[in-house]
C-alpha cells in the first residue's frame, strides 16, 4: 500500500475523475488508515509500504504497480502519461522486496488488469488501459493460462473494477462491464454456483473492487443483499467507507497490491 499523503484528483483519466466534488484529504487519510488497520489487525495481513511522492496523486493505487506471482513482478507500463512517472518508484520498491522485475513492451496496468483466479489461471482485461498483447507476456513469464476479457465501458476501465476472484473458486463480477464473448468465457470457466453477480448500482459503488484476506472480504459500503450473499458463501464482510477514493475511480482493491 502507499499512504495518501499526496492523493488528489487534479487530472481526469477516467469518468469518475470528472466529478465536481473535491477530495477531502483528511477524510481520505482516515479512510485509508481504517483500511490498512482492518487488513492487518482483522485479517492478519502484513503490509509493506511504498513511499508517497509529491506530484503523483495516484501512487496510492498500488494495484496497478505490477502483476506479482511467485518471485517475479511484471511491472506496469501505464497508458496515460500522467501515471508513467510512478513506474520507477514501483520498480525500485518491488526490487527492494526481492522480486525480479520484468518490463512489458506495451501498455499494461498490473494487477488492475490481471487477476489470479482459483490459483490456476489469470483473468485479464484489455482495451481501456492494457493492450491484449501484454497478456501473452503473462502466460510466457508465469506459465499461467490467461483468459483475455474485453472491457467495453470507460467506467469499468480495469478488470478489478468489475471482477473479483475469491477463494474457493468464487467469482464476484458485474456482467454489464463485459460483452457477450466475455460473459461466455466467464460462464465456461467458472461453475454457476461459484458465480456471484453484482447489480449496476453495486458496481458503481465499486463492489467488485474488493480485497480478500483469509475469510475476510473488504469493500466499500456493500449492499445488504451482497453482504448476505457473501456470508452465505462463508466470507466475513468488512464494509468500509472509501468515498474519497471513489472520486478518483478506485476503492479497496485499487489501494492494495497482493504480494503473496
Amino acid at each position, binding site marked *: 500500500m502507499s499512504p495518501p499523503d499526496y492523493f488528489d484528483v487534479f487530472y481526469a483519466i477516467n469518468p469518475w475523475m470528472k466529478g465536481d466534488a473535491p477530495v477531502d484529504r483528511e477524510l481520505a487519510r482516515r479512510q485509508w488508515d481504517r483500511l490498512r488497520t482492518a487488513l492487518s489487525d482483522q485479517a492478519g495481513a502484513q503490509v509493506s509500504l511504498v513511499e508517497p511522492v509529491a506530484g503523483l496523486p495516484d501512487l496510492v493505487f498500488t494495484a496497478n504497480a505490477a502483476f506479482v506471482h511467485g518471485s517475479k513482478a511484471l511491472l506496469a507500463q501505464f497508458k496515460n502519461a500522467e501515471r508513467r512517472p510512478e513506474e520507477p518508484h514501483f520498480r525500485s520498491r518491488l526490487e527492494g522486496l526481492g522480486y525480479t522485475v520484468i518490463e512489458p513492451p506495451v501498455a499494461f496496468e498490473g494487477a488492475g488488469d490481471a487477476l489470479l483466479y482459483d490459483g490456476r489461471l489469470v483473468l485479464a482485461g484489455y482495451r481501456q488501459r492494457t*493492450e*491484449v*498483447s501484454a*497478456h*501473452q507476456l503473462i502466460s510466457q513469464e508465469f506459465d499461467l*493460462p*490467461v483468459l*483475455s*476479457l474485453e472491457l467495453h465501458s470507460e467506467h469499468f476501465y480495469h478488470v478489478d473494477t468489475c471482477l473479483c476472484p475469491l477463494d474457493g473458486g468464487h467469482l464476484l463480477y458485474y456482467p454489464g462491464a463485459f460483452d457477450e464473448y466475455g460473459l461466455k*468465457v466467464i460462464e465456461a470457466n467458472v461453475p454457476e454456483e461459484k458465480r456471484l453477480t453484482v447489480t449496476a448500482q453495486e458496481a458503481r459503488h465499486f463492489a467488485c473492487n474488493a480485497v480478500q484476506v483469509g475469510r475476510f472480504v473488504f469493500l466499500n459500503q456493500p449492499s445488504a443483499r451482497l453482504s448476505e450473499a457473501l456470508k452465505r458463501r462463508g466470507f466475513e464482510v468488512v464494509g468500509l467507507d472509501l468515498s474519497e477514493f471513489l472520486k478518483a475511480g478506485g476503492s479497496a482493491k485499487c489501494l492494495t497490491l497482493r504480494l503473496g
Partner: protein
Amino acid sequence: MTSALLELHGHLIDSLILAKVIDRIQMSGYDYVLADLRVGARKQDISIAQITVWAPTREDLEALIQELKVHGVHLVANEEAEFGTVTAPGQAPPGAYTRHLPTTEVLVKGRWSPVQGTNVVWVIVFRSAGPELVPIGQLQVGDRVLLGQRGLRIGADQQL
C-alpha cells in the same frame, strides 16, 4: 476488390477472441478465409491465426483493420516473401507453403467416384520466369520454395 493477410496471436481460442474477430469480419460482409491456425498445445500457450480478407476498397480494408487492432490484429501482407532452398529431390524445405485441391468426386450412375490427381500437394517455386506451382514430387535440388504466407496474395476466386 483488394485483399490483405491479417495475423493475430494470443489467447485466441479460450478467450473467444478469434470468434469475435471472425464475427466482426462477417458482420462487415467481406469475404475471408482462415488461412492458417496454429493452436497452442497447452492452455498457457498462445495461438496464431492468419486470415485473408477481401474488401471492396483499400479504405474499407483499412477501416476494418483499425477496428480489429484492439484485439491484437495486425497486417502482414506487405512483407516480402521468404524462400527456402530444396536440398533433396522431391522434398520441400521446412515451413513451405502448400496448396491442395479440395477432395473432389463425381457422381456417375449413382456412385461417387474420386477424381484422380486431387491428392497432389503443390508448392510455389520461384524460377527465372517467376513464381509457379510445382508438385512436391517434382522439386529439384536448388529450387527456391515459398515459405509461409508472407508476401502472398490469393484472389477471391481461388477460395474454393
